[in-house]
């Protein structure tokens, strides 16, 4: 298939394809981070993860209309405000949900699947009633639109770079929080041995609530960032949920490094195959590979070594 193209053409395409893979990696990682915390650390199967993302997207939409109407001078910077608000909104809703629903189900992990799936339907219909069934268009500040021209052939989309930067910041932030802070130590203590953690004076209920809220808040940021590349509608969250679970499970549920490695390998496979084959075939082969590897290694790529 490459006979017709010159060498410069080809190298440019491979460079761009590399960027495409990296952007996909960032997108996958960003959407999986929140779930990795909730599923990995707490063992809660949160089927409403996509809806928490879309809450972030709608918050961004509200911000964009608000800034356009009332603070047009600050419109260029609204996206940062929107992301912060998205984090707060989704995080607050997450804590509310944990308090009212999830905490009653910790001993019945499979029931959380059903409960959060119901929650996702309720949230979808709520969005539909509030914002209408149609997708909304989120207006972007002009500096986020377009692409950087590296050479004649190579162009990198600015919003892709932006997503990459956000993902990097949040990943570093989460890693720091989980492995270098007091809160992270408490979370890991609760995960490893709940009664003992309680016995040494950790308020396990509070830790649960903050952990769940943190995971949902990060989902909100992801949703906010994805308004640049995807759709914002009541059911848009459903578009992400399968890929998200795939990445978290494939990476090994309790490991942040596993999630990163899994997002990287799946995105690279997907994007390379998509280029050489077609979209649907690429998806099928990626999924088959994941299934195959999980059969050989059911615990995922990386796992915590815990004494059972």
């Amino acid at each position, binding site marked *: 298939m490459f006979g017709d193209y010159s060498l410069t053409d080809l190298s440019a*395409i491979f460079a*761009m394809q590399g960027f*495409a893979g990296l*952007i996909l990696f960032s997108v996958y990682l960003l959407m999986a981070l929140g779930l990795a915390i909730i599923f990995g650390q707490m063992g809660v199967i949160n089927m409403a993860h996509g809806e928490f993302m879309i809450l972030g997207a709608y918050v961004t939409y509200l911000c964009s209309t608000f800034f356009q109407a009332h603070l047009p001078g600050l419109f260029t910077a609204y996206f940062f405000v929107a992301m912060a608000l998205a984090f707060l909104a989704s995080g607050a809703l997450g804590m509310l949900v944990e308090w009212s629903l999830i905490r009653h189900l910790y001993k019945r992990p499979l029931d959380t699947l059903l409960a959060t799936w119901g929650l996702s339907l309720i949230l979808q219909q709520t969005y*539909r009633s509030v914002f209408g069934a149609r997708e*909304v268009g989120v207006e972007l500040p002009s500096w986020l639109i377009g692409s950087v021209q590296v050479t004649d052939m190579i162009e990198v989309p600015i919003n892709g770079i932006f997503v990459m930067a956000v993902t990097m910041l949040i990943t570093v932030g989460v890693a720091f929080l989980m492995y270098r802070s007091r809160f992270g130590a408490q979370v890991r203590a609760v995960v490893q041995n709940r009664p003992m953690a309680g016995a040494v004076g950790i308020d396990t209920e509070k830790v649960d609530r903050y952990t769940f809220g943190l995971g949902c808040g990060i989902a909100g940021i992801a949703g906010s960032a994805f308004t640049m590349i995807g*759709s914002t509608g009541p059911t848009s969250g459903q578009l992400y949920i399968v890929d998200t679970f795939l990445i978290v499970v494939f990476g090994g549920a309790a490991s942040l490094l596993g999630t990163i490695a899994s997002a990287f390998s799946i995105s690279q496979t997907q994007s390379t195959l998509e280029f050489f084959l077609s979209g649907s075939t690429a998806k099928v082969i990626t999924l088959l590979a994941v299934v195959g590897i999980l059969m050989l290694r059911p615990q995922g790529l990386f796992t915590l070594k815990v004494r059972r």
Partner: protein
Amino acid sequence: MADETNNGLQSALRRRLLMGLAGAPALALLPRQAFAAGPPTSVVNTSGLAVTDTEVTVGILHSATGTMAISETGSIQAEKLAIEEINAAGGVLGRKIKIIQEDGASDWPTFAEKAKKLLVNDKCAAVMGCWTSASRKAALPVFEQYNGLLYYPTFYEGLEQSKNVIYTGQEATQQILASLNWVAKEKGAKTFFFIGSDYIWPRTSNKIARKHIENVLKTKVVGEEYFPLGHTQFNSVINKLKLTKPDVIFTDVVGGSNVAFYKQLKAAGIDLNKQTLLTISVTEDEIDGIGGENIAGAYSCMKYFQSLKNPNNEKFVAAFKKMWGEKTVIGDVTQAAYLGPYLWKMTCEKAGSFDVDKLAVASTDIEFKGAPEGYVKIHQNHHLWSKTRVAKALPNGQFEVVYESPELIEPNPFPKGYQ
């Protein structure tokens, strides 16, 4: 309206207009005589439909909830508008239309179930409904078994014809062939790249397009790609577009993927004012979600655009916005849904009956001169003769029509040489 004591012609006209706009609540207040007595019920209804001396029941069956609510809401609105207008003008055969609305909930078996409810329990004389091909395929056996009548509004892949369905949208050849001819002639297009969602409608449409491109236009398809429904990442295929540099990108991507595709195309620096892109899946409704600035410059081929300039359409757009709000937009399918109740009314009047068997025959050659898209006529094969139009997307979310087929295009659901 209480102060209207003057019985002059002008006042009567004005009152009629006001009633049309005021809608259903006002209708309830109308004296029964407003509906001129029609022929006796025993004559117009020999098959046990829900028809009384004053009322006839019609079903509306669309998804008001679930994924498809995005698309189907417009159809529901248009059908309700048409029925209100018909009622305000005296109803059908002297009977007021009563609506029973059911929700298909974006779930295909639910469509079959609700269709059965509308036909068996409610005895609806006709049903306006279904949107996706999947929902139609699910409901079709029910309509055939219980001999119902369905008015189906969506443009679709063709390869179907039923006594019990009137297809008010375009089948694939009506939508595609004229626009390919236009782009070949107008833009001198020699190479095409297809991008679609992976299900029956895009695949069938692209098959027809490919045959036409290769056999009739004698040009080339340089790529054909399908993506699973809900796919959100298009950077790889955009790179392929940059490599192959096709004269025309031909797309039938749907749903959330549609939004992601155009946003990423724009972000990757592909300027649709320079790169010709022809789509058969973007109407004003979709642009709402995509954002006008992301798709400006693309060409869409449909039979109807909100910006069409003719008196019928101006009236329709004004009435629609009056009823459903200034900010609503009207896409191709919404207009086709609006045709359903009117075509049914005219068919009933021609047949002098509500019986489905008589309507199925009488439908042939029914003309609707007041259609917003212009003149339409029902073909013997239960599809519509209609024009094809190509329009350029503008940054404000509207379209500017750049081509209109000179003649009505004959519907051909089973195109020979295209399968």
